[in-house]
């Protein structure tokens, strides 16, 4: 087994994992915020579809969603996404649903009195949300968000079911061809390293927001 080739291939595959990771974060956070708003609105024809969306995304396996978007979309709509794009669509839709519920919980946890104080002081609804509510939500949702983001790092490995050459796919290929367990151990270290960085980021964020209760 040529370790330098193994490592360079694993590093390259990690880039794909990281790409899925970052693209998912970039799009699923705003989409989740939107879905949280849709979930909270009293307008039934918005709330109901959003609830169904969240139910589907959280209620079915991410792997199934990946397979469906890659293989199942064509017969239904005629659209064929390439592997990586299909993976990213599935991840964004799936994670946005989880984020939506976290955001909703955070928004609901801001005391009614904060809204009332803002209202009496004459803040508009937008000002109230962005200046008063959202900063407090950010602080409250950090622990559940760190859970989800750590999950996301590991879930990127699911993209291999539709043939995306991400870290674990390349690793498994090496394991079977070289008949050695070593690549698995190395992959574990890779994932661990990525999540150490994620954990560190959340710890720093929590510390920085620790100036108030």
């Amino acid at each position, binding site marked *: 087994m040529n370790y330098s080739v193994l490592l360079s291939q694993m590093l390259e595959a990690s880039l794909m994992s990281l790409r899925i990771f970052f693209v998912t974060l970039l799009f699923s956070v705003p989409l989740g915020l939107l879905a949280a708003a849709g979930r909270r609105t009293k307008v039934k024809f918005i709330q109901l579809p959003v609830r169904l969306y969240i139910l589907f995304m959280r209620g079915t396996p991410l792997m199934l969603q990946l397979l469906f978007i890659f293989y199942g979309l064509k017969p239904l709509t005629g659209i064929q996404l390439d592997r990586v794009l299909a993976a990213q669509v599935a991840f964004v839709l799936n994670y946005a649903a989880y984020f939506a519920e976290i955001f909703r919980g955070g928004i609901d946890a801001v005391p009614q009195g904060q809204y009332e104080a803002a*209202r*009496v002081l004459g803040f508009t609804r937008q000002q109230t949300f962005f200046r008063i509510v959202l900063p407090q939500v950010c602080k409250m949702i950090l622990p559940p968000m760190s859970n989800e983001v750590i999950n996301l790092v590991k879930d990127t490995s699911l993209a291999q079911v539709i043939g995306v050459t991400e870290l674990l796919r390349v690793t498994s290929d090496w394991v079977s061809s070289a008949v050695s367990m070593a690549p698995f151990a190395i992959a574990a270290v890779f994932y661990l390293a990525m999540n150490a960085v994620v954990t560190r980021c959340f710890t720093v964020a929590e510390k920085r927001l620790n100036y108030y209760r």
Partner: protein
Amino acid sequence: MAILTARNVYKNFDGTEVLKGISLDVEQGEVLTIIGPSGSGKSTLLRCITQLETIDRGEITICGEPLVKSGTSRSAVYADRAARNRIALQIGLVFQNFNLFPHFSVLRNITEAPVHVLGQKKAEAETHARKLLKKMELSDKEDAYPCQLSGGQQQRVSIARALAMNPELLFFDEPTSALDPELTGEILKVIRELAAEHMTMVVVTHEMAFARDVADKVVFMADGTIVEQGTPAQVFGNTQSERTKSFLARFNES
């Protein structure tokens, strides 16, 4: 001149009538205290006047501008949004549990609305805020966060926050009910000072001695109606209604 006029204000929550035809006037520079048992509708009345709740029918006029009028079919007709916002800016409200913004420093709690709602320059708002903090004897706390302050200090910040908007009329919703007796004293002192400066105020309170001493006019509410109103001497000294007598008797015992 009456700065606040309420006429026959009705409000129900899910069929329970909470305000049953409240009428009262507050004159410029006057201090009105509202007393009465819990659940009598005192806080609801304040919340209706400060637009945190809407009324079912009746009329409310603030600073000469109608907030809500009686419609043809007995239902209330509110002024348009621009007028409601204009009226809201004439009014300050101090809450029972302060409702300070926990993520802002004391100074920013006070300056945020003047800067972003009234469009004041930041420096101007801060100068004003520091003046108010000095008045509240909190000059050394401008960089502190609400969680670092005692309840009494937090309530004084929230009074400063309300005053920073230069309201014509300031409401207090049981401003000392979340405080121990020692801290209660410091808040009552601040309200007394404001009264001495002829700030127009409406104070809902369970502090009877305070309600009597600071008020130009006292309103006693029970079961959603005003049972008795008049000068402190009339309400406390020459009580007419049995309901008021029994309420005050319990207070006099303690």
